[in-house]
């Protein structure tokens, strides 16, 4: 879908109250320009001066954790994780910051990184996101006016 067609569907220029644009980490695909184009186009249509939060939701799988249903039934902490997956995901998350920088060029927003994971993983997830932000900050990769906010929601 080109940006003109996209704007026909997701034109936010008339919106006067939008405060939060939310998506999942899985939607920010750094390997193609699709995600970048999608959100850049949408953000560029926002004309309202209201401060905007861009919330990215990370789930268990985004940290390389996968619940095993058969284990999960009997043991709430039953989790499988794959180290190679975790490394891949870490790389992916770092590259996502490139997409955020492109988006920021279209419209100023505060980046909110939200770990929506099960309780047993929440500490690992928030720490990973904190490390990610610190690394980006050290590299000078954070172009946002406000420091990214890291939050978590969890269920047992």
């Amino acid at each position, binding site marked *: 879908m080109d940006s003109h067609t996209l704007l*026909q*569907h*997701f*034109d*936010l220029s*008339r*919106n*006067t*109250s*939008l*405060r*939060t*644009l*939310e*998506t*999942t980490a*899985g*939607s*920010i*695909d750094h390997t*193609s320009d*699709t*995600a970048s184009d*999608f959100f850049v186009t*949408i953000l560029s249509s926002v004309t309202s001066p209201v401060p905007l939060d861009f919330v990215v*939701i990370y*789930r268990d*799988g985004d940290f390389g954790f996968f619940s095993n249903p058969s284990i999960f039934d009997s043991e709430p902490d039953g989790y499988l994780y794959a180290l190679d997956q975790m490394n891949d995901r870490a790389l992916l998350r770092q590259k996502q910051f490139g997409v955020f920088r492109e988006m920021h060029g279209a419209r100023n927003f505060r980046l909110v990184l939200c770990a929506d994971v099960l309780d047993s993983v929440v500490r690992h997830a928030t720490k990973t996101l904190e490390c990610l932000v610190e690394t980006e900050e050290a590299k000078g990769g954070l172009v946002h006016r406000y420091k990214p906010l890291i939050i978590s929601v969890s*269920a*047992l």
Partner: protein
Amino acid sequence: MIIAYFIYDKRALIACSMTCYLWYIVAVPHLHYSLTTEDGCYSWDRMRYEWPTPLQKSYDLGLLPLVKRLQIRLGLWRNIKFTPEWIDRRTLRYFTALTNLQELGIDNLQLSRFMPNIQQCFGHLSPTLRFLALGEPTGSCRQILYFIGIFPNLQDLKFHRSLPTDGPESTADAALVPLSVPPLRGRLTLAHFAGEGLVRDMITYFGGLRFRSMDLFEVGCARLLLYECRKTLETLRLYPNDPYGEEFLGRREEDTQVRDL
């Protein structure tokens, strides 16, 4: 009270309820907050959820007034419809005992079949219902609109895999006017939604749309929705490339499972 922090921890809630009578009184509404029933064909270990077993059990124990969330799950892919035959005299007795229900989710609701007695089946929910989720409902736009209008305090709406219902309406349908104009100021969730006619009817009969929050996944009428809610929309959730986006939209139902006994 601190017990409310354990709403997702069934084991802790059960332990609390067995501590003393006072703790039981506090814990029991959280324990019976949510009820899920299914068509019973998933697997042997799901049989205890088979319709109407959970309703019947809770009814026998006098617990249905404590239920705030009811989810009627049918295999969306198996084409099993929720028809009036599911609510016989006995089941209707259970259903009408749900006097404090705030959230209702029904898969494959065949509204056209319910129309003659729809008030009898669902009317008792009208003072309390705040959230309505319909998975693949069948019926005309007017019938769906009439159904929504039964609940004058409805805030949140969810349509999942809505079939196009934009075909020609019968004369009887044309005469259907919603009984009320629900506020609908909360969250609208649409996934694989192709019912632009329904949205247009909602705008006409409810005097516009005023949702504060929207979740859109594979929706054909996003432009219309965003325009209608341009003065009220505060949160927009989009999952353009996420293969699990649809699963994410169903989080409220997953919560239901977590909170079910």
